[in-house]
């Protein structure tokens, strides 16, 4: 009667570990939604999860330290946006700044503009 350790067991073990706070199963899902990514070694998953945690910490810290909200003890959207632009390793974030417009909303506003032009 062997105790089998399936993936979800390992996930909960590692998340129960004080060193990792992010949900590993969700990280795996996000990784797999990347194009062409097939299989990921469990240890590689741990590494990625921890790296993501570090990234959040660094992003928050450097945005706050370089930001305009230090005096008022606040962290704003623009602090983050500025950090993304000024820090080279955060340049990849400029794709998602400013806020994403859903394609259908964009198309709708495009249609509206065309209608307005047709009316004139």
């Amino acid at each position, binding site marked *: 009667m062997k105790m089998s350790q399936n993936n979800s067991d390992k996930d909960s073990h590692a998340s129960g570990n004080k060193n990792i*706070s992010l949900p590993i199963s969700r990280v795996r899902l996000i990784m797999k939604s990347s194009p062409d990514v097939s299989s990921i070694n469990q240890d590689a998953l741990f*590494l990625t999860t921890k790296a993501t945690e570090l990234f959040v910490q660094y992003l928050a810290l450097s945005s706050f330290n370089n930001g305009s909200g230090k005096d008022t003890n606040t*962290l704003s959207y623009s602090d983050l946006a500025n950090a993304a632009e000024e820090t080279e390793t955060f340049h990849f974030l400029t794709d998602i700044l400013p806020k994403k417009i859903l394609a259908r909303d964009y198309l709708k506003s495009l249609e509206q503009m065309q209608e307005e032009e047709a009316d004139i």
Partner: protein
Amino acid sequence: MASSSGNDDDLTIPRAAINKMIKETLPNVRVANDARELVVNCCTEFIHLISSEANEICNRSEKKTISPEHVINALESLGFASYITEVKDVLQECKTVALKRRKASSRLENLGIPEEELLRQQQELFAKARQQQAELAQQEWMQMQQAAQQAQMAAASASAAQQAGSSQDEDEEDDI
């Protein structure tokens, strides 16, 4: 929010986990809601970034599975080399925890008695129990028998005494 849509691109780390991390990193700092939302999305972007890079490195190495090595190299090439020491430490910690758990479970299995032996012990116990029951039943039966015999004897002597008494009366009547 993310889970209700079927679109893969909407997958994100749960907001609660991000909020907790922000709170731990910047205690006592007020963080605007749209800033939090942005951090959630940045997380997803980061994961995609690392996965794609690690995947490319993996393809070049002609291996099929993304390994820890691939992730570490991806971090390095993307400018996150400063993270490497710390992520490696966590990996070691995770392995140690997993190893301890495996040892614990196998120690438990080794203490355990193999199934055939257990079966044999069970049969022995059953046989013993049957024997004890049989002996008990026999004892009870013998006691009942004794009790019945005694009762019979008592009844017999009582009726004998009665008969003796009544025949005496008859004799007396005859004499008159």
